[in-house]
């Protein structure tokens, strides 16, 4: 499945691993924080409209 990377196999695979991990982490953190903030805003808005 994985093509023959020759003697540089570790180099290529570790580059891909590091980059993909970083990208995925960035996306996951962005989405997690986005969800949290969105829920928080709805909560605050509801409380404010209840209390006038």
């Amino acid at each position, binding site marked *: 499945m994985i093509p023959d990377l020759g003697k*540089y196999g570790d180099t290529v695979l570790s580059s*891909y691993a590091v980059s993909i991990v970083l990208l995925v982490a960035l996306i996951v953190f962005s989405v997690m924080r*986005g969800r949290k903030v969105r829920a928080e805003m709805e909560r605050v*808005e509801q409380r404010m409209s209840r209390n006038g």
Partner: protein
Amino acid sequence: MSIAAKANALWEYANPRKFLATSERVLPFFWIVSITCIVVGLVWGFFFTPDDYKQGSTVKIIYLHVPAALMAINCWLMMLATSLVWLVRRHHVSALAARAAAPIGIVMTLIALLTGAIWGQPMWGTWWAWDPRLTSFLILFLFYLGYVALWEAIEDPDTAADLTSVLCLVGSVFAILSRYAVNFWNQGLHQGASVMRAGAVTGADTEEKVSNIFFYPLLICIIGFVLLFIALVLYRTGTEIRARRIKALLARERVGG
């Protein structure tokens, strides 16, 4: 619509609510297309391109290294533009977009630095060389860190937006100066960065025909990174807008709303 009217229509997106509504509508497109592009580009590049005769399989790293490096710089340019818009027109969305973009720039710079270091190990025989291009990215990384730290440190959001914008402007000038300084200081091991000629990456003596093999997947990866950057900025700006709104609501509650 006249050009002026179009320009005016563009400023309407500076209205946070309109921004949120529009970004919500277009975001799915950007997420899907960007991730598809990156997956296709990387799979193509990883599985279906040959090794370079000089660098062997390490040439496959360019599919990550080059787009990340491009975005690291373009992200700073985008922050510069939005900072200017904030300083001149006082659109909050603009300042928040700059704030939202900075961490993406950090990650892109980090990817460019790390893949560069990993690639440099077998090629140059060392993890880290004080090569001008690597050094410039390290300095850019410091600029990003300082910028984010300043945003985090300041309580009042408008003050933070003003100060970080000025820092971004001044920083840009110094970043360009540093680039020249670093070039002067060390002529460097790094190849030229001409992206449009992937041959530059694979060595000048490679045939152009061969470099086309690397060029198309690289182009797809670059498009993917650009779209991913846009998606992330739109999404994160939305988050910043909501966070800002929460802060404003709570502050109003405190003064007795």
